[in-house]
């Protein structure tokens, strides 16, 4: 069988690994627009800060592809799919045949409607190249200028990640967020307030409930930004971090069903039987609601790819569903959130504890005696237990009163659960 994977990040690798676990014979080909082996997208912030080089953030090195007998077409772009002939067309004109295809093309930067985006010093922040370009630019500029001002448009995970890297470079950072709070998909209002407090203490300026309408400058060069409120900001560089959206380019001219992302069933299969999709490009069933959604985080992408891999070689394994989980470094303070961050209605129970002095915050959301969401700032040691309780839909009725305790752990849960997990997994 000839298996082709478009995209060489978490989902593509997850699929290749699952396939090779069970099938040493099928031909696997990975096509990637980027010219290098898989690397860690979350750690491009350390490329931006200069803390790490490419080798430090490699996810699977060249030997991996060799050892697993995977053909690589790196630096080649897949431009179209002929679903009837089962052929992929590359930018260089070559055709690649497939029996089974995985689309894991990831996400692309949302370009917000801002005037003047054709200037030189405007960068997205999704790939290694983006991070390297920003780093090189700032390093060069730091030689001639005393201080560089960088405006980050968007205060979500990507924008915050950029701010973390930029702060280490010693430039002035200003985050512009459309919503009233930064990191609003990861934290609730309380969590965001704490995150904002920490960021501000590190010298990051944050403007919320406002957005950029134009990038101003002199000729090709960025000089500043005008905001919707009328406010003007001086800056030398702009990072576009208004979010990512599934990269659906390859689906054009196919009959693939798409919404925000490529729609798949619980086997990660699209509406075309030989074509599967996984990762940030995919709209798969959610683990909590059961409805299809895009959950663009690394482990979710790997897991989708991994389950897709099994199903592509006809080993039927239903995907357990998308589960959100993020771990964010708040300038040295650890934080983790998972599942829902706010209760959708009054039938949800909320347990919470906020301490602004210690910067500790805990919040647990329970629905019908099951954990459906949580936020932990500063103390994250036991966060994984909550992920397990959520993933496995464990009834927490008997130990609910202990969930917020500092030393919460399996000793507080039901003996039956503890025995099952730790004494006899059979």
């Amino acid at each position, binding site marked *: 069988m000839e298996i082709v994977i478009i995209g060489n990040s*978490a989902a593509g690798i*997850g699929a290749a690994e699952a396939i090779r676990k069970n099938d040493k014979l099928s031909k696997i080909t990975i096509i990637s627009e980027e010219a290098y082996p898989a690397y*860690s*997208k*979350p*750690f491009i912030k*350390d490329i931006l800060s200069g803390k*790490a080089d490419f080798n*430090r*953030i*490699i*996810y*699977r*090195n060249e030997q991996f592809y060799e050892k697993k007998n995977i053909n690589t077409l790196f630096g080649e772009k897949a431009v179209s799919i002929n679903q009837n002939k089962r052929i992929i067309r590359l930018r260089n004109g070559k055709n690649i045949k497939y029996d089974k295809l995985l689309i894991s093309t990831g996400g692309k930067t949302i370009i917000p409607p801002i005037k003047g985006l054709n200037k030189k010093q405007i960068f997205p922040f999704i790939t290694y190249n983006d991070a390297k370009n920003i780093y090189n630019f700032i390093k060069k500029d730091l030689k001639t200028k005393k201080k560089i001002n960088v405006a980050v448009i968007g205060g979500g995970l990507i924008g915050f990640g950029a701010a973390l890297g930029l702060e280490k470079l010693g430039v002035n950072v200003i985050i512009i967020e459309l919503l009233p709070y930064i990191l609003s998909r990861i934290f609730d209002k309380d969590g965001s307030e704490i995150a904002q407090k920490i960021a501000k203490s590190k010298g990051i300026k944050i403007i919320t409930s406002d957005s950029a309408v134009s990038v101003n400058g002199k000729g090709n060069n960025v000089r500043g930004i005008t905001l919707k409120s009328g406010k003007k900001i001086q800056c030398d560089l702009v990072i576009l971090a208004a979010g990512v959206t599934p990269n659906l380019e390859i689906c054009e001219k196919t009959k693939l069903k798409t919404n925000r992302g490529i729609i798949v069933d619980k086997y990660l299969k699209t509406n075309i039987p030989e074509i599967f999709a996984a990762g940030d490009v995919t709209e798969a069933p959610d683990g909590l609601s059961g409805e299809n959604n895009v959950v663009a985080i*690394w*482990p979710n992408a*790997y*897991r989708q790819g*991994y389950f897709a891999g099994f199903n592509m070689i006809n080993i039927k394994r239903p995907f*357990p569903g998308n589960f959100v*989980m*993020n*771990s964010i*470094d708040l300038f040295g303070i*650890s934080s*983790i959130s*998972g599942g829902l961050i706010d209760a959708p209605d009054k039938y949800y129970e909320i347990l919470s504890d906020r301490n602004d002095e210690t910067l500790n915050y805990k919040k647990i959301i329970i629905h019908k005696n099951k954990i459906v969401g949580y936020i932990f700032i500063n103390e*994250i*040691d*036991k*966060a*994984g*237990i909550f*992920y*397990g*309780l959520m*993933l*496995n839909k464990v009834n927490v009725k008997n130990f609910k009163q202990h969930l917020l305790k500092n*030393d919460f*752990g*399996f*000793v*507080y849960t039901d003996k039956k659960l*503890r025995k099952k*997990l*730790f*004494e*006899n*997994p*059979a």
Partner: protein
Amino acid sequence: MKLVYPKEEVCITCRLCEIGCIVEHSKTKDILKAFLVEYPRPVSRILIEENGGLSFAQNCRHCEEPLCIEACSNNALWKDEETGIVYLDEKQCMSCWMCIGLCPYSAVTQRIDEKNEIRNAVKCDLCPEKEIPVCVEICPNSALFFENRGVKNWR
């Protein structure tokens, strides 16, 4: 594969397993130096949970399909295909703590030593240099067993 299994009924919270683990994973393997001299101080990979009279020691389950490996975007975690042991390369780890967020057993621990700029995750490696993991060997109460009861995932 063989794993470390606790028996909570006979655990007396002496924490010798933690001490043994710290010494075994120290540079000097000397209890005094490990606790008083070595920087960064080694961290135990087995943890006692305690509530009232109940306690038990928990460590990595070396899952069939480990969630910690799914979580790691930096290739610091991998499963040895022959032995089944899940290893964490502490030097490769870049401390994003995603493994901590995903491990449903809470078997990965943060090691933070600001003074020495050390931040990395640590976890049980089943003491590959020893026949029996040190925690099992040192337990005075037979509250830890090193046996093959089958490896699974909790999901």
